[in-house]
């Protein structure tokens, strides 16, 4: 449809495209690329929050350094490894619960029953509540003396005495995982529901006519068909859970029993004012997530290429 020569027309369109793209690209460069590059840079310095301009390049000493026969630095800090372990347990635990409950929620939302619209609306409510609020709400409900959870469990005779959900180091991580799962399961449920709604009706009809047990139908037909959506949900939630900060910090602060990599890095950076060391921890966390993201992107890229024109 071009009156001018095709090549000059195409060149103009490419120029226009970049012109329209540039504000967003500049924005991303300023708020994402540059700060990330500075963080990685700081990871190799001894910068401190108290004197921001005054720092020296110290190589990889923030990560590991040997001095007098002992190792120091991030990789030699047991607390760092505790936080790595906590993060992995948190991610695996919360995502596992979310997937199981998310699928159950989605199946219920997909079933035809009176009041389904109301049920679907109710599922959105935990998602809509700000993390700070849900963490505070649950901290109150899990209060060891006055909490409704202990009260209910004792009334039902399930526990003999109050449980210190947020003080007993053996239970805090579990509590935080459950609270996170409560808030994020709706997201997983919505993704699964979206894929349930696209399933072909005829194979269900056939299974019903043949009198196959619903549980068999679920594992034989439904689950394999929703697997792609479930995979996407799991990857999204895993990447999110690995960088968790809010819910942990609000419910248990900097406590060792729940400290995640993000909480560790923030404590070094802000509370201990150690920008260099904190940046080193942040950089390691970034590398872990970048590696997993790269894996995910290679998987998704096939999709984008197929879908793209």
């Amino acid at each position, binding site marked *: 449809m071009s009156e001018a020569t095709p090549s000059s027309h195409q060149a103009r369109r*490419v120029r226009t495209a970049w012109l*329209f793209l540039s504000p967003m690209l500049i924005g991303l460069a*300023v708020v994402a690329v540059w*700060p990330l590059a500075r963080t990685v840079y700081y990871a190799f310095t001894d910068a401190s929050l108290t004197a921001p301009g005054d720092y020296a390049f110290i190589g990889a000493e923030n990560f590991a350094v040997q001095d007098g026969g002992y190792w120091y630095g991030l990789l030699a800090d047991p607390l760092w490894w505790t936080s790595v372990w906590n993060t992995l347990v948190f991610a695996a635990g919360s995502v596992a619960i979310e997937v199981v409950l998310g699928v159950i929620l989605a199946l219920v939302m997909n079933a035809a029953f009176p009041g389904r619209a109301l049920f679907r609306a*109710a599922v*959105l409510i935990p998602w*809509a509540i700000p993390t*700070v609020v849900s963490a505070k709400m649950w901290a109150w409900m899990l209060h060891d003396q006055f909490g409704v959870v202990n009260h209910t469990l004792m009334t039902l005779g399930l526990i003999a005495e109050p449980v210190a959900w947020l003080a007993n180091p053996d239970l805090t991580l579990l509590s935080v995982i459950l609270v996170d799962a409560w808030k994020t399961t709706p997201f997983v449920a919505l993704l699964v529901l979206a894929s349930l709604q696209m399933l072909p009706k005829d194979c269900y009809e056939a299974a019903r006519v043949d009198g196959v047990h619903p549980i068999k139908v679920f594992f034989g037909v439904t689950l394999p068909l929703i697997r792609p959506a479930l995979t996407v949900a799991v990857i999204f939630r895993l990447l999110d859970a690995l960088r968790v900060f*809010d819910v942990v910090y609000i419910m248990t602060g900097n406590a060792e029993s729940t400290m995640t990599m993000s909480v560790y890095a923030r404590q070094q950076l802000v509370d201990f004012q150690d920008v260099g060391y904190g940046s080193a921890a942040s950089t390691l966390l970034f590398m872990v997530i970048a590696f997993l993201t790269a894996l995910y992107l290679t998987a998704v890229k096939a999709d984008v290429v197929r879908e793209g*024109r």
Partner: protein
Amino acid sequence: MARSGTRGIGPAIARLGFWLLVAGLLVILLFPFYYAVVTSFKSGSGIFEVDYLPSELSVANYTSIFAEQPFARNILNSLGVSLAVVGISLFLGLTAALALGRFRFKGRRWMLLAVLGVSMFPQVAVLSGMFELIRVLGLFNSPGGLILSYLIFTLPFTVWVLTSFIRDLPVEVEEAAIMDGAGPWTLLTRIFLPMMWPAMVTTGLLAFIVAWNEFLFALTFTLSNDQRTVPVAIALITGGSEFEVPWGRIMAASVIVTVPLIALVLVFQRRIVSGLTAGAVKG
């Protein structure tokens, strides 16, 4: 699921089980917020009694959060920051979506993947760099710093959702407009914009919610009470001593900031669900 017409005791039990499941799930989904509301209307020592039903209707907690701290100011801060983030994200997202969705050029796919990659950034990974940037720009302890930093969350999904939406619009309108000599800016504002309201409402709402709820940056980049946003204000509500956590006031503040959000989500339920799933499934 409820297969009416089938005879026998089995289906009846199955139906009963289904309704029990629905009831149990509803309790888990709704009770925590309900309990926060019940708690927020209690006063004095009544707060330490566990009541499953509303027992009091005192507004003391509600009046005291506004009297004892700049909570109204915190709400305005949150509102201002969130609206600014929505506006900037939509503008940057729309222009980028036009380029990514309607133009063919080298590096387009690569660009989309890079944008998607940014959405995976852990917040702490940019914390020290962002802190420095905000300080250099003189935006520390001001809404400007938060508006700037929140773009890191909102830009990626705004660009993705708007791009996939604009890409699916019919080609004919665009061709007709180009025939009439419309430039790309006219094309965007006159032709595409009117058709893109659904996607803009969706992404705008999601951006608003993300900005309204954000905690770590707000905690780190603001210092004084009157510059804080609502999540930080709630997290930092403290009593006279360490052992005297004012749960009633915390719940009152929580209810105030959550009710509008729940209303918003329920009103725009369909849009939000489609945005969430599109953002995840397509990207």
